[in-house]
Protein backbone atom coordinates (compact mmCIF):
# COMPACT_ATOMS: atom_id res chain seq x y z
CA UNK A 1 0.00 0.00 0.00
CA UNK A 2 1.22 3.47 -0.89
CA UNK A 3 0.00 6.63 0.79
CA UNK A 4 1.12 10.16 -0.03
CA UNK A 5 -0.50 12.46 2.48
CA UNK A 6 -0.23 15.68 4.47
CA UNK A 7 -1.49 14.12 7.70
CA UNK A 8 0.58 12.46 10.39
CA UNK A 9 0.16 8.73 10.91
CA UNK A 10 0.32 6.21 13.75
CA UNK A 11 2.62 3.36 12.74
CA UNK A 12 1.23 0.88 15.25
CA UNK A 13 -2.17 1.35 13.58
CA UNK A 14 -0.82 1.45 10.03
CA UNK A 15 1.31 -1.67 10.46
CA UNK A 16 -1.41 -3.54 12.37
CA UNK A 17 -3.96 -2.87 9.64
CA UNK A 18 -1.74 -4.76 7.20
CA UNK A 19 -0.46 -7.36 9.68
CA UNK A 20 -4.06 -8.36 10.50
CA UNK A 21 -4.49 -9.59 6.93
CA UNK A 22 -1.57 -12.02 7.06
CA UNK A 23 -1.07 -14.63 9.78
CA UNK A 24 1.95 -16.00 7.92
CA UNK A 25 3.98 -12.84 8.56
CA UNK A 26 6.80 -13.36 11.08
CA UNK A 27 8.93 -10.31 10.30
CA UNK A 28 8.26 -6.61 9.78
CA UNK A 29 11.24 -4.38 9.07
CA UNK A 30 10.56 -0.70 8.99
CA UNK A 31 12.19 2.67 8.60
CA UNK A 32 10.82 5.95 9.91
CA UNK A 33 12.35 9.25 8.83
CA UNK A 34 11.91 12.39 10.97
CA UNK A 35 12.63 16.11 10.58
CA UNK A 36 15.82 16.79 12.54
CA UNK A 37 16.48 19.99 14.51
CA UNK A 38 19.79 20.56 12.74
CA UNK A 39 21.30 20.00 9.31
CA UNK A 40 24.79 20.93 8.15
CA UNK A 41 25.18 22.90 11.40
CA UNK A 42 22.11 25.04 10.67
CA UNK A 43 19.29 25.07 13.19
CA UNK A 44 16.18 23.87 11.37
CA UNK A 45 12.81 25.53 12.03
CA UNK A 46 10.70 23.37 9.73
CA UNK A 47 10.71 21.91 6.23
CA UNK A 48 8.35 22.25 3.36
CA UNK A 49 8.11 19.04 1.44
CA UNK A 50 7.00 19.22 -2.16
CA UNK A 51 5.84 16.27 -4.20
CA UNK A 52 5.01 15.51 -7.82
CA UNK A 53 2.25 13.26 -6.60
CA UNK A 54 1.22 11.51 -9.78
CA UNK A 55 4.83 10.64 -10.60
CA UNK A 56 5.69 9.62 -7.03
CA UNK A 57 2.80 7.12 -6.91
CA UNK A 58 3.92 5.56 -10.19
CA UNK A 59 7.52 5.34 -8.96
CA UNK A 60 6.66 3.81 -5.61
CA UNK A 61 4.37 1.26 -7.26
CA UNK A 62 7.23 0.31 -9.54
CA UNK A 63 9.75 -0.05 -6.73
CA UNK A 64 7.36 -2.17 -4.69
CA UNK A 65 6.91 -4.38 -7.72
CA UNK A 66 10.69 -4.69 -8.10
CA UNK A 67 11.12 -5.52 -4.40
CA UNK A 68 8.51 -8.27 -4.80
CA UNK A 69 10.49 -9.78 -7.65
CA UNK A 70 13.74 -9.75 -5.67
CA UNK A 71 12.42 -10.88 -2.27
CA UNK A 72 9.63 -13.02 -0.84
CA UNK A 73 7.35 -10.33 0.53
CA UNK A 74 3.87 -10.87 1.88
CA UNK A 75 3.00 -7.16 1.86
CA UNK A 76 4.55 -3.71 2.01
CA UNK A 77 3.65 -0.20 3.05
CA UNK A 78 5.02 3.21 2.11
CA UNK A 79 3.67 6.39 3.67
CA UNK A 80 5.31 9.66 2.59
CA UNK A 81 4.12 13.02 3.89
CA UNK A 82 4.32 16.40 2.16
CA UNK A 83 3.63 20.02 3.09
CA UNK A 84 4.93 21.90 6.12
CA UNK A 85 6.58 19.56 8.61
CA UNK A 86 7.98 20.80 11.92
CA UNK A 87 11.07 19.45 13.67
CA UNK A 88 10.36 15.97 15.14
CA UNK A 89 7.59 15.27 12.62
CA UNK A 90 7.55 11.97 10.81
CA UNK A 91 8.34 12.27 7.11
CA UNK A 92 8.24 8.73 5.83
CA UNK A 93 7.45 5.17 6.85
CA UNK A 94 8.54 2.13 4.86
CA UNK A 95 7.51 -1.26 6.25
CA UNK A 96 8.09 -4.65 4.64
CA UNK A 97 6.21 -7.77 5.73
CA UNK A 98 7.60 -11.27 5.17
CA UNK A 99 7.79 -14.72 6.69
CA UNK A 100 11.47 -14.40 7.52
CA UNK A 101 13.64 -11.51 8.59
CA UNK A 102 16.12 -11.35 5.71
CA UNK A 103 13.47 -10.61 3.08
CA UNK A 104 11.82 -7.82 5.04
CA UNK A 105 15.11 -6.32 6.09
CA UNK A 106 16.80 -6.18 2.70
CA UNK A 107 13.70 -5.04 0.81
CA UNK A 108 13.06 -2.23 3.29
CA UNK A 109 16.56 -0.89 2.71
CA UNK A 110 16.23 -1.31 -1.06
CA UNK A 111 13.00 0.68 -1.15
CA UNK A 112 14.52 3.44 1.00
CA UNK A 113 17.57 3.63 -1.29
CA UNK A 114 15.37 4.08 -4.31
CA UNK A 115 13.06 6.50 -2.58
CA UNK A 116 15.95 8.78 -1.61
CA UNK A 117 17.63 8.57 -4.99
CA UNK A 118 14.74 8.88 -7.44
CA UNK A 119 11.29 9.50 -5.96
CA UNK A 120 9.75 12.86 -6.87
CA UNK A 121 9.94 14.63 -3.49
CA UNK A 122 11.87 17.81 -2.63
CA UNK A 123 12.69 19.21 0.78
CA UNK A 124 12.86 22.96 1.30
CA UNK A 125 14.52 23.38 4.67
CA UNK A 126 13.85 26.56 6.65
CA UNK A 127 16.48 27.90 9.08
CA UNK A 128 16.37 30.99 11.28
CA UNK A 129 17.23 33.44 8.51
CA UNK A 130 17.19 31.55 5.22
CA UNK A 131 15.94 28.46 3.45
CA UNK A 132 17.53 25.89 1.19
CA UNK A 133 16.40 23.21 -1.24
CA UNK A 134 18.12 19.95 -0.37
CA UNK A 135 19.46 17.31 -2.74
CA UNK A 136 20.00 13.78 -1.47
CA UNK A 137 23.61 12.76 -1.60
CA UNK A 138 23.05 9.01 -1.79
Amino acid at each position, binding site marked *: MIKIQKEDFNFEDEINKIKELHSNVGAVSSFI*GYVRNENNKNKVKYIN*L*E*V*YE*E*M*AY*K*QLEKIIHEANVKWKLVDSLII*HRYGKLNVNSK*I*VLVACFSKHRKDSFESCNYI*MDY*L*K*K*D*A*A*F*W*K*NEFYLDKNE*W*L*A*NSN
Partner: protein
Amino acid sequence: MKIKYFAWIKDITNVEEEVINSIQIKNLDEFKIYIIKKYPDLKKHMEKEILRFAVNQEYITNSTTLNVDDEIAIFPPVSGG
Protein backbone atom coordinates in the same frame (compact mmCIF):
# COMPACT_ATOMS: atom_id res chain seq x y z
CA MET B 1 1.74 20.21 -23.75
CA LYS B 2 1.41 20.69 -20.03
CA ILE B 3 4.69 21.73 -18.37
CA LYS B 4 5.26 21.35 -14.61
CA TYR B 5 8.06 22.93 -12.56
CA PHE B 6 9.15 21.79 -9.12
CA ALA B 7 11.28 22.99 -6.19
CA TRP B 8 13.53 25.95 -7.02
CA ILE B 9 12.78 25.72 -10.76
CA LYS B 10 9.51 27.43 -9.89
CA ASP B 11 11.47 30.41 -8.53
CA ILE B 12 12.93 30.87 -12.01
CA THR B 13 9.75 30.32 -14.01
CA ASN B 14 7.42 31.98 -11.48
CA VAL B 15 4.76 29.46 -12.43
CA GLU B 16 4.16 25.90 -11.23
CA GLU B 17 2.48 24.76 -14.36
CA GLU B 18 1.69 26.07 -17.83
CA VAL B 19 0.42 24.87 -21.17
CA ILE B 20 2.45 25.52 -24.29
CA ASN B 21 1.21 24.95 -27.79
CA SER B 22 4.00 24.99 -30.29
CA ILE B 23 4.18 22.74 -33.31
CA GLN B 24 7.93 23.42 -33.33
CA ILE B 25 8.47 21.12 -30.32
CA LYS B 26 8.64 17.60 -31.61
CA ASN B 27 11.15 16.15 -29.16
CA LEU B 28 12.85 16.80 -25.81
CA ASP B 29 15.88 18.57 -27.32
CA GLU B 30 13.62 21.03 -29.10
CA PHE B 31 11.70 21.50 -25.87
CA LYS B 32 14.93 22.34 -24.01
CA ILE B 33 15.83 24.98 -26.61
CA TYR B 34 12.35 26.47 -26.34
CA ILE B 35 12.36 26.57 -22.55
CA ILE B 36 15.82 28.18 -22.29
CA LYS B 37 14.67 30.89 -24.67
CA LYS B 38 11.62 31.46 -22.49
CA TYR B 39 13.54 31.29 -19.17
CA PRO B 40 17.17 32.28 -19.82
CA ASP B 41 18.06 31.72 -16.13
CA LEU B 42 17.53 27.99 -16.66
CA LYS B 43 20.40 27.86 -19.14
CA LYS B 44 23.27 27.57 -16.66
CA HIS B 45 21.49 24.77 -14.77
CA MET B 46 20.74 22.98 -18.01
CA GLU B 47 24.42 23.17 -18.97
CA LYS B 48 25.52 21.73 -15.64
CA GLU B 49 23.24 18.79 -16.34
CA ILE B 50 21.69 18.86 -12.89
CA LEU B 51 18.11 19.16 -14.11
CA ARG B 52 15.91 16.17 -14.54
CA PHE B 53 13.11 15.70 -17.04
CA ALA B 54 10.05 13.51 -16.88
CA VAL B 55 7.57 12.89 -19.66
CA ASN B 56 4.23 11.52 -18.50
CA GLN B 57 5.73 10.89 -15.04
CA GLU B 58 8.66 8.83 -16.31
CA TYR B 59 12.29 9.96 -16.24
CA ILE B 60 13.62 10.76 -19.71
CA THR B 61 17.31 11.14 -20.42
CA ASN B 62 17.61 10.91 -24.19
CA SER B 63 15.70 13.12 -26.56
CA THR B 64 12.34 11.43 -26.88
CA THR B 65 9.53 12.29 -29.27
CA LEU B 66 6.89 14.52 -27.73
CA ASN B 67 3.17 14.67 -28.41
CA VAL B 68 0.81 17.57 -27.88
CA ASP B 69 -0.94 15.91 -24.96
CA ASP B 70 2.25 14.98 -23.07
CA GLU B 71 2.94 16.18 -19.53
CA ILE B 72 6.54 17.35 -19.19
CA ALA B 73 8.15 18.04 -15.82
CA ILE B 74 11.43 19.80 -15.02
CA PHE B 75 12.99 19.50 -11.58
CA PRO B 76 16.26 19.43 -9.64
CA PRO B 77 17.69 16.32 -7.90
CA VAL B 78 15.20 14.85 -5.44
CA SER B 79 15.43 14.86 -1.64
CA GLY B 80 12.66 12.63 -0.32
CA GLY B 81 12.82 10.06 2.44
